């Protein structure tokens, strides 16, 4: 999947940009609730969001070099 593709098997052709904005809690309320209902049933969107979650986990798991922690 390239960065501009819609999720390939998503029946509503939800774009990764929309999913990213939803994940950042920045969609208008009505759109957000419609999307939430859709995501619950769409394996493609769930997979894309799971990739975002994994990415966030990897980033948060980073530890600072000892020289910067002051310990």
């Amino acid at each position, binding site marked *: 999947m390239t960065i501009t593709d819609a999720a390939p098997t998503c029946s509503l052709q939800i774009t990764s940009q929309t999913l*990213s904005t939803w994940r950042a809690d920045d969609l208008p309320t009505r759109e957000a609730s419609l999307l939430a209902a859709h995501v619950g049933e769409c394996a493609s969107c769930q997979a894309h969001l799971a990739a975002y979650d994994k*990415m966030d986990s990897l980033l948060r798991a980073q530890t600072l070099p000892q020289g910067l922690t002051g310990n």
Partner: protein
Amino acid sequence: MGQFMSLLRLPAWLRTTSPLWPIQLLATEAETADSSSAVRTEVAGAVAPGLDDFEAFFTRHEREVVGYLWRMTGEEQAARDLTQETFLRTWQRFDQVRAYDQPKAWLFRVATHLALNHLRDQATGAKARQAWSQCEHATQSDPAMRIVNQDAVLQTLQTLSPRDRAALVLHSIYGLTCAELARSLGISRSAAKVTLWRARERFRTQHQRSEERS
């Protein structure tokens, strides 16, 4: 005196040239002029309003800022230097900064500005890439740092443009909202959403490639 003793709680690398140095300097001058502790306290209080608040602000955000700048620059020394500069600028405007709705967004805006300038000065980022290469070598030789995933994350971050990297780190690690991202990066909220999306997709694609290669 207690205020200055609190410098001892700062990380060693900040203790030597603490962002509180303007206050420390003034206190030293006051001490030289009159060794009376009463006068010292009075002078310190007069020249350093809000020092306790600033110290609390510093303590609350210092680790976030140095971590952010380390991820932005890929260099420990640059992260230290730019963190000092960030807090020095914050101190100089602290009366205004602490009145802001989102002082953290302002803090990250200063840090981002300094990081982007630093990276621009590196001319094409060659030095940063070299630093990451050295970092990789160091981690391979240090058993405590042999965390493959972590190395891959660091290297993948470095492949993003500085602005994309800033957006991803600020949102995913430090929890800034799109509105706060916009303020920190000096762009519109719409642009912040696009920048965050682009950063996520680029990071995801790059990380996937590096996993496939390994």
